[in-house]
């Protein structure tokens, strides 16, 4: 049952990611990616990561994608139109590298057999890592990293402000 739900959610995520890449309208792309992220959140729950699933919905779908939508509407970006400027070399090389890359990924997966070194036993559902344990780990072993990320976010805040500022605004 869980396996079925996981496969269905992963399929939805992949299909909507494909729609996101295939569409020409950026707004439809963002909405398709939001659906894909929600489906990914479902897979995170099934992979015993409920806290990350909540973060996925709140931060990715809720904040980052809304920021994208806001920017698209602010800049009034229309659909990409076929303007006659075709770049066959670019398209060919891009497609070729995607095919080669996908083949390499598949080959690696097959070669490793998706096996893990040691540790074949299943994780019981009652060993589900709760957010409390995650938070304890985050604020003990990973405290330095956590603080570094907070400084990074501050730097990004200042950087975004400086970049988007009007130069001649006094």
């Amino acid at each position, binding site marked *: *049952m*869980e*396996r079925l739900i*996981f496969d269905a959610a*992963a399929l939805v*995520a*992949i299909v909507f*990611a*494909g729609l*996101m*890449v295939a569409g020409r309208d*950026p707004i439809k792309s*963002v909405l398709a*990616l939001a659906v*894909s992220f929600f489906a*990914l959140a479902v*897979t*995170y729950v*099934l*992979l*015993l*990561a409920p806290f*990350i699933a909540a*973060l*996925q919905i709140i931060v*990715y779908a809720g904040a980052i994608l809304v*920021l*994208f939508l806001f*920017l698209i509407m*602010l*800049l009034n*970006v229309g659909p*990409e139109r076929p303007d006659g*400027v075709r*770049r066959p070399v670019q398209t060919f090389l*891009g*497609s070729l*590298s*995607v095919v080669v890359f996908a083949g390499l990924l*598949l080959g690696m*997966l097959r070669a490793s*057999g*998706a096996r*893990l070194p040691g540790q*074949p036993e*299943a*994780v019981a559902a009652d*060993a589900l*890592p709760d957010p409390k344990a*995650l938070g304890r*780990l*985050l604020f003990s072993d*990973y405290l330095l990293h956590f603080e570094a*990320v907070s400084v*990074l976010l501050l730097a*990004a805040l200042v950087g*975004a402000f400086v*970049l*988007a500022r*009007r130069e001649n605004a006094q």
Partner: protein
Amino acid sequence: MIGPIPLSHVLLASGALFAIGVAGALLRRNAIQIFLSIELMMNAANLALIGYGAALGTQQGQIIVFFVIAIAAAEASVGLAIFVAIFRHTETIDVNKINLLKW
């Protein structure tokens, strides 16, 4: 195995999402869609990290994903600010038309 879910399914889904993201980043011309493809690739990596973390029975995978999400948020804000700055100069975000470093 993570409960009843085989790890190979997780890795296959992650690989497929990453390949779609690569295709989008290479083939689209709209800067916003390229950026969305990059976000998709990050999510594919997150899925693989969580899958391995669950299969190995540790929390490390989730910790890494936590940091990846925080960095993705920082990256999105700076990247979108760059788009706004570029759009002010050139009135477009088609990457084929943005070919000058200085105006």
